[in-house]
């Protein structure tokens, strides 16, 4: 790292080139066709034997990317001012960033093995209104990174004067408290409950009955042994090989998923430091994420079938986001028990979470049963009845199979109806939903950005309505088919809380 020049601008460590090299390879992987097209064109045009072509191609690629990474390091300068971080970057396209401390929602760090040995860190900033990291300082000294983080955290905050805010301001400055630690067993649970593996299981699920039957036949016929010993390709030995292949893929997927959990969350620790929660974890690259509790917009708890089996939850704290779908600024707690989740909720929304819970087993108020009638009519009966005459011409009476869609879809609608629920707290709301598993989202009234009520002709007849609540975390939270009078009363109360609150939503 260089010392600051007369104007205060300084360079990061030359090892930042490693960070940029990683970024360049990531970008190439994302846009493989566009990125590698010039190289491919060169290789096609170049006359020579294939080995020379490959050596020249790979050499040119490596030299080019390393040179670009070094240039990006060389042209990167930063300056830490009184109230902001200034960044100048770019080789051809120059960028100047001025990230005000007050806009920074979270300071995150990453430390790969090389940086760990050299005592360096990559610091990135999440800011209000950006959909991801707005700026990064690669390969700066760990001490300097910690100073910067502490300085941003110490930014003066005017004492709010409403009741909830007063409670927030009065929280005593205390030493960091450990809220959660994940064990090796938890890594296995995270790996086994990974959504990607779960999705694959859903795809393979319908095949399981067939596989079980085949497995029975295989055992009876000793075909597996025959296949393994003689290698003769009979029909049954083919099925046995198929079963082995699927099982093998599943085992490999689970192992990869568990390894991924170790890589990302090894020695995961969640610490509360005043009003900031900080998580650290990772086997090769240590990730440190932090979130200012005051900036959290909503809490999302999820529990799909596998997590339900383990009696665990996944918790996400969402911050303000410019992304339409609210991606980019989530603070993830990959695994926690119900009790830990309750304790964490109180940390995120101190003193304002009374009467609320993220536990899906709580006494949520159900939506109207008319939801069933409407949804089954639209999603189950109507498509089936329309499909029959269309299919009849092609397949004849076999078109009646379309009627099977009705009970299948009705079951899904019933599942969704049973899971939908609303829980009202003193200062916020929680909404439960889901199809197979559960999702619960909770937020405070004072964080709401806008609110709408919609009525379809059917809902108007039944005096029902759908309430939509929009938060700065992006997207809408829907409460369908509640009584119209309740929906309007709730809307008016939320508006009253938003408009009378003197505390900021962020």
């Amino acid at each position, binding site marked *: 790292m260089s010392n600051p020049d007369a104007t205060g601008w300084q360079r990061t460590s030359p090892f930042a080139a490693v960070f940029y090299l990683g970024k360049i390879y990531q970008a190439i992987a994302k846009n493989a066709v566009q990125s590698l097209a010039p190289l491919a064109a060169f290789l096609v045009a170049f006359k020579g034997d294939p080995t020379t072509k490959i050596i020249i191609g790979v050499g040119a690629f490596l030299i080019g990317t390393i040179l670009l990474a070094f240039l990006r390091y060389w042209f990167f300068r930063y300056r830490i001012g009184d109230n902001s971080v200034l960044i100048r970057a770019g080789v051809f396209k120059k960028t100047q960033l001025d990230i005000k401390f*007050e806009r920074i929602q979270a300071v995150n760090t990453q430390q790969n093995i090389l940086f760990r040995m050299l005592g360096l860190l990559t610091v990135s900033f999440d800011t*209000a*209104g950006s*959909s991801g990291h707005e700026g990064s300082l690669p390969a700066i000294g760990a001490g300097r990174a910690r100073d910067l983080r502490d300085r941003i955290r110490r930014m003066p*905050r*005017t*004492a*709010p*004067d409403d009741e909830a*805010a007063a409670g927030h301001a009065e929280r005593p400055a205390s030493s960091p408290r450990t809220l959660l630690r994940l064990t090796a067993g938890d890594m296995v649970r995270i790996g086994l409950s990974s959504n990607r593996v779960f999705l694959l299981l859903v795809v393979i699920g319908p095949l399981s009955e067939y596989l079980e039957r085949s497995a029975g036949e295989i055992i009876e016929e000793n075909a597996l042994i025959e296949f393994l010993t003689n290698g003769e390709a009979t029909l049954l030995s083919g099925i046995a090989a198929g079963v082995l292949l699927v099982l093998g893929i599943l085992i490999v997927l689970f192992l990869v998923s568990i390894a991924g959990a170790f890589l990302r969350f090894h020695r995961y620790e969640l610490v509360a430091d005043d009003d900031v929660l900080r998580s650290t974890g990772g086997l090769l690259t240590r990730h440190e994420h932090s979130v200012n509790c*005051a900036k959290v*917009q909503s809490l999302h708890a999820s529990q799909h079938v596998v997590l339900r089996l383990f009696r665990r939850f996944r918790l996400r704290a969402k911050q*303000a*986001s*410019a*992304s*339409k779908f*609210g991606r980019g600024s989530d603070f993830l707690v990959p695994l926690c028990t119900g009790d830990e989740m309750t304790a964490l909720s109180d940390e995120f929304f101190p003193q304002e979470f009374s009467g609320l819970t993220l536990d899906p087993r709580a006494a949520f108020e159900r939506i109207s049963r008319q939801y069933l009638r409407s949804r089954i009519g639209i999603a189950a009966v109507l498509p089936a009845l329309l499909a029959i005459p269309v299919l009849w011409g092609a397949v004849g009476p076999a078109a009646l199979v379309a009627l099977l869609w009705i009970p299948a879809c009705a079951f899904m609608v019933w599942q969704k109806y049973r899971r939908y629920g609303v829980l009202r707290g003193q200062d916020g709301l929680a909404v439960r939903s889901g199809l197979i598993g559960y999702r619960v989202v909770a937020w405070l009234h004072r964080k*709401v*950005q*806008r*609110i*709408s*009520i*919609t*009525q*379809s*002709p059917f809902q*108007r007849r039944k005096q029902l309505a759908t309430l939509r609540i*929009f*938060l*700065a*975390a*992006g*997207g809408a939270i829907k409460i369908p088919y509640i009584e119209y009078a309740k929906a*309007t*009363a709730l*809307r*008016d*109360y939320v*508006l*009253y809380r*938003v*408009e009378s*609150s*003197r*505390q*900021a*939503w*962020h």
Partner: protein
Amino acid sequence: MFENPEIPIHDLPAADNLQWQKLDARYVRRLQVEALITTALIAVGVLALQLLPLPLDRRLFFGGWLLVLSSGLVSLAWPPVSVPRKGYALRDKDIVYRSGVFWQTVTAVPFNRVQHVETTSTPLDRRFSQAALQLFTAGSSGGDLKIDGMPAGVAESLRLYLLEKAGASIEQP
């Protein structure tokens, strides 16, 4: 002295029984003109396909002209039905907008959540001296509330009023 009187929930102001402000009287006509232009463009496309020596089934043109006719009729008939059901109401602390014929929606945006306000106008809007008012709150990449068909002068004065209201309601962090 500090006072903190309790507010009965039933006394909260309701966002339903409001004096809804109607959109510009010529907004129906403007929508009809826009729809006719679109229909005319589709008609030109269908006609071009019919005149070109292409090996196309004649039934395709029948379908095309049916589409032109039906879209023309619907786009002429729909605005007089939908526009009167749209309206906005300004209250002391929020703006409320209603829309929809079959699916009726009422949206409320508190002033202290408005990030910025825009007015936009297309050439056709300007021909009719109209503009659209767009309010942005946090957490959305698009406009949160868009009120089309306002008289341009009203939209501009409303924009300035909303900006003033939003600026006056800056909260403490």
